[in-house]
């Protein structure tokens, strides 16, 4: 305990102005980020911010190559990640890399790709390998198949034809066994859990086609369909690879954001020494030190210290909350002006996060029961196609065609209806639309969200951090420039707002931050104070200012024994919030604000935006209840929110959107994240959703029409391999080209 006291005293003594002192240089422990290869050479990955052009790539790689011990630095331009390898005998110095990046003008954070993303990477590679094999097989089998088709018109001998069929079999069978595995496994997994997925008809179609072709080849028949089977796999795998690539890109970007935002935690070792560790290394019971201006890295209980916390990311409440020993704090809260020692608690018991997660689990379950277009299409398609095949079989048997002919035609029906176009119809649109949204700064977490965005008729906004910008600004006039100069010495978020209006003023030398109270400085014999109303004796002024600015918080200033001043500080509206809300209402949508903040603060924002329906002071379960009530009334709700308290509501709503500054849990619950200060992404996703849904429906109708034409042809036995190949590739290409229109006009 005594050692922690020393550490706290150290921090507090140095909390006076000096960037170097407010963030004392501690022994940073980055061991968790370093991996070693077989020869003992260390490697680490970094997420890098600020890369805008190809030139940055050369700058970074050349700059880092000069850092001692570095063998190789390579920047991945696609996902903005840097991989550094050290020479085998060198000790990896991550801090040196970060400093070098900083000197080059970039921000970097060490980054641990983690198990999930490695598995994802492997899955992508597996799909691409399958695609390559299917492509090879499709080309070579097609080469032989075209020869057979051409030979049928000229003078090919039956011996040559059989030879060509056998060579096709030798290529197609192993290729299909390898390349089709993603579908076979998907079908099996679906069947085990008692569902018929789109993988099932694909598997059935491929296996039956191959089996029939082998039988036909054995009996020396004219037609074999090896080309159809491998081509089908090739087209479907293109869809899968694109889909996977979209997911991976979004995930990589979201992981970079998380890595760049995470600050790590300052661990207090039992001997009192301090070191910085990644948040993932914090165990329950660990003691961490929270300096002024830092975010709480993990849930815990305050052991020592006194400070103001800005909980707006947790509860939506904008007024600061004073915490002292024994208080519970939640990850994401922003520390004010005091240092705190926090004991990390196990994520158990009735903590806020558990409650939020339980609510979220329930909401997500309800949502996953909702059928998306692809499921509905599968449900309709599978029984219809199989019934058609069965009818064909029965019909030919009844007509006295014999088992061989009847089976042949039934399988032909299955081949020609194999859901090639159907399998591409929806993923292709999702991939193209997600790519278009990505360029507009929206990261889509879930492809099926697009069609949900399309049907939205009610938009619910959270206030804090969603309609407003996350960082506070000064609402009134700066009546004394000394207040702003003094604010430069504080790390308190409200003081930062004041400091922003200081222009190029320099901080007062010798200013000291008093934990939990404010900053003070002696200037020309006058004691200047900046901080809470109590600290400055400004209770009356603070109350008056709060009455005039109901959505603001106050920070007070007093020079000597003069009249104290109170400055209103508030989170400003996003610059285009009013226009976005107006155009949502113009398009006939209902707009509501559900906030966890005080009624006065919410009323002010609602008034400025012209939103009549708003509620304040809502707990997470209230928000979820309001949204469920709206949806029971038939509304399709889009929830836009960022706080931890919004996460259940985000999961419960028909569709959801979060700014990229949102709490982790909310980011995970939201269908999409948007970057930047503008609120227009709300309009962009709704528009993209409508366009995507229209194209998906067009594609589905097209696939249906194609089947309607092809099935009778196959059922009456007119389907030659040539027609099957033309129909299959023709419909796939048509569907893909139509999907490209989801890019929209720039």
């Amino acid at each position, binding site marked *: 305990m005594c050692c922690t006291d020393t550490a706290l005293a150290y921090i507090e003594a140095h909390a006076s102005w000096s960037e170097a002192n407010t963030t004392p240089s501690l022994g940073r422990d980055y061991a968790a980020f370093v991996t070693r290869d077989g020869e003992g050479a260390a490697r680490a990955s970094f997420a890098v911010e600020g890369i805008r052009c*190809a030139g940055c790539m050369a700058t970074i790689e050349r700059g880092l190559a000069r850092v001692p011990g570095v063998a190789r630095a390579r*920047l991945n331009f*696609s996902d903005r990640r840097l991989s550094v390898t050290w020479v085998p005998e060198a000790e990896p110095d991550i801090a040196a890399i970060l400093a070098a990046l900083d000197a080059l003008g970039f921000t970097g954070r060490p980054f641990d790709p983690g198990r999930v993303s490695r598995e994802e990477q492997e899955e992508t*590679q597996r799909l691409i390998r399958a695609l*390559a094999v299917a492509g*090879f097989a499709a080309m070579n089998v097609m080469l032989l198949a075209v020869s057979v088709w051409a030979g049928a018109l000229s003078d090919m001998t039956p011996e040559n034809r059989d030879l060509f069929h056998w060579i096709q079999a030798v290529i197609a069978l192993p290729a299909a066994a390898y390349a089709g595995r993603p579908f076979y496994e998907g079908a099996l997994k679906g069947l085990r859990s008692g569902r018929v997925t789109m993988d099932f008809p694909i598997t059935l179609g491929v296996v039956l086609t191959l089996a029939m072709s082998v039988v036909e080849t054995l009996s020396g028949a004219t037609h074999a369909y090896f080309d159809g089977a491998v081509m089908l796999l090739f087209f479907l795998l293109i869809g899968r690879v694109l889909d996977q690539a979209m997911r991976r890109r979004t995930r990589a970007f979201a992981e970079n954001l998380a890595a760049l935002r995470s600050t790590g935690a300052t661990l207090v070792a039992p001997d009192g020494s301090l070191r910085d560790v990644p948040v993932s290394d914090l165990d329950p019971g660990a003691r961490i030190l929270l300096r002024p201006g830092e975010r709480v890295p993990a849930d815990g209980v305050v052991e020592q210290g006194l400070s103001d916390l800005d909980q707006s990311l947790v509860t939506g409440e904008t007024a600061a909350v004073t915490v002292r020993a024994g208080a519970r704090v939640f990850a994401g809260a922003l520390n004010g002006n005091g240092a705190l020692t926090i004991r990390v608690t196990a994520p158990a018991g009735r903590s806020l996060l558990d409650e939020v997660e339980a609510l979220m689990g329930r909401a997500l379950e309800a949502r996953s029961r909702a059928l998306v277009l692809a499921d509905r299409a599968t449900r309709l398609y599978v029984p219809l196609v199989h019934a058609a095949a069965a009818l064909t079989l029965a019909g030919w048997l009844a007509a006295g065609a014999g088992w061989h002919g009847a089976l042949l035609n039934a399988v032909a029906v299955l081949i020609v209806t194999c859901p090639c176009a159907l399998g591409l119809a929806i993923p292709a649109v999702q991939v193209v639309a997600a790519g278009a949204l990505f360029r507009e700064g929206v990261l889509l977490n879930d492809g099926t969200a697009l069609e949900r965005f399309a049907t939205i008729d009610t938009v619910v906004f959270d206030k804090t951090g969603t309609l407003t910008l996350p960082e506070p600004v000064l609402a009134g006039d700066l009546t004394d420039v000394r207040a702003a100069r003094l604010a430069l010495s504080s790390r308190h978020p409200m003081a930062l707002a004041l400091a922003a209006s200081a222009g190029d003023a320099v901080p007062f030398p010798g200013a000291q931050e008093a934990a939990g109270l404010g900053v003070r400085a002696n200037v020309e014999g006058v004691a200047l104070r900046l901080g809470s109303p109590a600290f400055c004796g400004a209770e009356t002024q603070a109350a008056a200012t709060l009455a005039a600015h109901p959505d603001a918080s106050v920070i007070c200033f007093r020079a000597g024994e003069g009249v104290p001043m109170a400055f209103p500080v508030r989170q400003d509206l996003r610059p285009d919030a009013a226009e976005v809300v107006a155009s949502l209402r113009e398009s006939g949508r209902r707009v509501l604000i559900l906030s966890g903040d005080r009624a006065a603060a919410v009323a002010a924002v609602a008034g400025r935006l012209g939103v009549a329906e708003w509620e304040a002071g809502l707990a997470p379960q209230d928000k979820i209840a309001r949204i469920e009530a709206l949806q029971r009334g038939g509304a399709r709700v889009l929830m836009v929110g960022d706080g931890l308290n919004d996460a259940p509501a985000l999961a419960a709503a028909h569709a959801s959107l979060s700014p990229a500054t949102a709490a982790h849990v909310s980011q995970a619950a939201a269908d999409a994240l948007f970057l930047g200060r503008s609120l227009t992404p709300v309009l962009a996703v709704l528009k993209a959703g409508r366009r995507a849904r229209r194209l998906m429906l067009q594609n589905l109708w097209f696939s249906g029409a194609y089947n309607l034409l092809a099935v009778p042809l196959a059922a009456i036995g007119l389907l030659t391999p040539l027609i099957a190949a033309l129909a299959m590739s023709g419909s796939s290409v048509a569907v893909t080209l139509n999907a490209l229109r989801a890019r929209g006009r720039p």
Partner: protein
Amino acid sequence: MTVLLLVIPLALAFGLAGLAAFLWALRNGQYDDIEGAEHRALRDD
């Protein structure tokens, strides 16, 4: 038509060589950063 016995294996061998080259490039990480590769190609060092 005996020429087929030479030409077809030859065509397949070329195809397989192409496939092997692609798989090797994939394993080698050459497709990990497609966007970066197009810029690297134009770098003059």
